[in-house]
């Protein structure tokens, strides 16, 4: 997908802005987040950008994909805002818009869900292979090789080959896509 402008981004994230409308910028979320040192802007700053319609700036940061869903911010937010869910909605928007800077994470989730659609359950080896192939980077898999071999030797993952034909949950996935437009 080519360049997405601020208006298009705003349209996608309207519901998230709605969710955090009562944010008082206290920064409790930032203070509670275990991943802030790996973020270019803090969670509090992200909500500020969202509230002031600076969607381009928001999506030029990768802060929200650093969220590891620990739910500390949600638990502690004095306004009771569901901030972890807001992070997820931003990840969904990035995935829907196929934004280039989030390709790495989107591919990981796509590979995972593809395995679920086909078999109903995740086949870990198939999904990681799919992920590595889709990244088109021959060096990346080596970082995981020693763990992979260990898991194989313990019989915890099995080399499996995808069955062809209709996937187990294809009908559900299709209906979801229709309803979400």
């Amino acid at each position, binding site marked *: 997908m080519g360049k997405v402008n601020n208006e298009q981004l705003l349209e996608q994230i309207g519901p998230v802005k709605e969710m955090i409308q009562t944010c008082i910028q206290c920064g409790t979320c930032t203070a509670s987040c275990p991943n802030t*040192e790996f973020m270019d802007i803090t969670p509090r700053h992200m909500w500020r950008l969202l509230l002031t319609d600076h969607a381009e700036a928001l999506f030029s940061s990768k802060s929200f994909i650093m969220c590891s*869903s620990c739910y500390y911010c949600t638990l502690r937010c004095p306004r009771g805002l569901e901030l972890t869910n807001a992070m*997820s909605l931003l990840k969904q928007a990035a995935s829907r818009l196929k934004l280039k800077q989030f390709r790495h994470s989107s591919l*990981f989730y796509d590979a995972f869900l593809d395995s679920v659609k086909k078999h109903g*359950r995740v086949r870990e080896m198939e999904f990681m292979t799919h992920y590595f192939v889709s990244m088109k980077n021959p060096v990346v898999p080596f970082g995981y090789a020693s763990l992979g071999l260990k898991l194989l030797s313990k019989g915890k993952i099995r080399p499996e080959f995808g069955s062809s034909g209709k996937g187990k949950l294809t009908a559900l996935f299709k209906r979801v896509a229709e309803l979400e437009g």
Partner: protein
Amino acid sequence: MKYLYYPGCSLEGTSVEYNISTKLLMEALDVQLEEIEDWNCCGATAAESNSHLLSYVLPARNLALAEKMKSSKQILVPCSACYLNLKKTEEIIKKDKILFEKINIVLAEEDLVLKGDVIVRHLLDVLSKDVDIEKVKGNAQNKMSGLTIAPYYGCQCLRPFTVFDDPEEPHSMDALIQATGAGVFKWDMGAQCCGASNTTTKPEAGMELVGRILKAAKGADAILTVCPMCQMNLESNQKKISHKEGIDLEIPVLFLPQFLGLAMGMIPKDVGLNLNLSNTGPLIQKAI
């Protein structure tokens, strides 16, 4: 006592020892488990990062399948990520009627209906609240006395739904550990994040979080977990992080039911101890 059982994908693969030991422990505690027929993946964190509706439909299919079963109205879930996904679906349909309707429109593709009359329970919730702890105590063989065990809870069995424990300072594992004769390691990392899937997709961040936990556990004889993701992260990165930090951070990491089973006299192989990725040898030596 009888519960419907949702193992989830990890318990069929990378955390098969969690499955084996949970079933064995429950049997020893006179708790019956009946696996939900034809269950599917809960969506993990992938569905919620991709589609809002899908992230509820995948768990909802499991709840609908569970509702068709007659033996119990409670689902026992050992995996914290699965637990959270099933729980959030149980909760949201009480509040969001429009979403509830949409979920049922999708489930109709498989002639399934979700009514909302099953309760989702985490394994730790059931072990600490429903099970008679005297049964653990009565069967404990004193092997564990003298050991100091670090209880690690992780995030998603505690937050955002605060059902059975304090979400910041959890203690539900304490009594279970003490019932085996072991002591509880005092630390403040029990409810901290292990980095989740960041260890795979953003390793520099994920490894930092795992490292903080391993460093804080120094002095304990083992760490206990109740989540496949936490277990994998804490076990599989010990060598790498030890090397990077220049200190030995290796420590046995066990699933809670493995540890309780061992204390109650089960043999290591029966609780799947040969399948753990960390070196559990030092713990077994000390326990005997």
